[in-house]
């Protein structure tokens, strides 16, 4: 009984802390490079609680339209780190860059918790438009959880996540920008730096952003980072 109660409290606490930066991830461009191999690591850190979520993955451009990437996902919550889930992410480039008024792609993700029968699917469009030296990118993803072990008391319908980025093409090695991330509970906005070839390391790309919560449900400050090596 005590164990069940403790689990319930822990679950609620975990849910609350996880929700704080649930919407912050990355803003996807809609482009695919055939034959490209990508090693990627990224993380999202709640700077108030110290909790974080991190992903490491390897991806491959199967065709000029389809890029697939596999991830392992770890989380630190309430002082404990655990590799919690695996994910397959598919990115589809639907139009050639510059062909139409805006460039369009699509993202299809499937994530499964390693220890529980909890699945999470995400699907939605990726849009990018260049305005001179500025590039605007928007992602709109629809997410649904399913499986035998999902929380029956939660709203398990489709949820919506939105993200947007406006960056300035300052130079090949550094592009400043601003980002917004939101889901149905959290909203965060803040600056981001996007870079390439740090310290002369070719084929390395990086991103770092600091997001500020816009409501009580969102962490006051969230750090996100990303490191990619492409070959």
């Amino acid at each position, binding site marked *: 009984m005590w164990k069940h109660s403790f689990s319930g409290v822990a679950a609620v606490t975990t849910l609350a802390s996880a929700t704080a930066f649930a919407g912050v991830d990355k803003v996807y461009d809609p482009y695919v490079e055939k034959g490209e191999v990508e090693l990627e690591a990224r993380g999202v850190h709640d700077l108030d609680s110290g909790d974080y979520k991190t992903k490491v993955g390897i991806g491959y451009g199967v065709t000029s339209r389809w890029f697939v990437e596999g991830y392992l996902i770890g989380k630190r919550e309430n002082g404990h780190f655990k590799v919690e889930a695996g994910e397959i992410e598919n990115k589809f480039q639907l139009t050639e860059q*510059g062909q139409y008024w805006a460039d369009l792609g699509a993202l299809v993700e499937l994530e499964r918790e390693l220890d529980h029968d909890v699945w999470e699917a995400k699907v939605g469009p990726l849009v990018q438009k260049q305005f001179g030296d500025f590039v605007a990118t928007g992602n709109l993803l629809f997410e649904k959880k399913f499986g035998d072990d999902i929380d029956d008391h939660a709203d398990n319908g489709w949820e919506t996540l939105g993200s947007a980025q406006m960056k300035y*093409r300052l130079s090949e090695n550094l592009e400043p920008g601003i980002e917004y991330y939101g889901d149905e509970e959290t909203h965060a906005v803040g600056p981001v730096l996007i870079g390439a070839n740090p310290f002369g390391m070719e084929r390395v790309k990086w991103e770092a952003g600091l997001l500020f919560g816009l409501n009580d449900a969102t962490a006051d400050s969230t750090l996100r980072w990303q490191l990619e090596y492409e070959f």
Partner: protein
Amino acid sequence: MLRIPSAFAIATLLSVGTAQAEIQTVDLAIKDHRFQPEAVTIPAGEKIKLMVHNQDATPEEFESYELNREKIIPGNSKAVIFVGPLAPGEYPFFGEFNQDTAQGRVIAE
């Protein structure tokens, strides 16, 4: 609350841009790890379609920060790269896999 109809709204918005005039095609070859021609002249202020034919057996990556384009072209294959509309000027590009020899530029005038 945003739902599935939002995706259709975006698709509809994008489709508006599909009604466009005929786009001029400009041929560009990659042979012996060099672009031929190395200078491609296009009209300023117009979108053009670069038809890049990689005649080498090995892949090449067309890359240009100035043109904001990056595309891998497998060996003995063709790829389309849309460029512009550009302001008058020169825009360098290069082959990522053979940078010593594969250099070129788009001249918009």
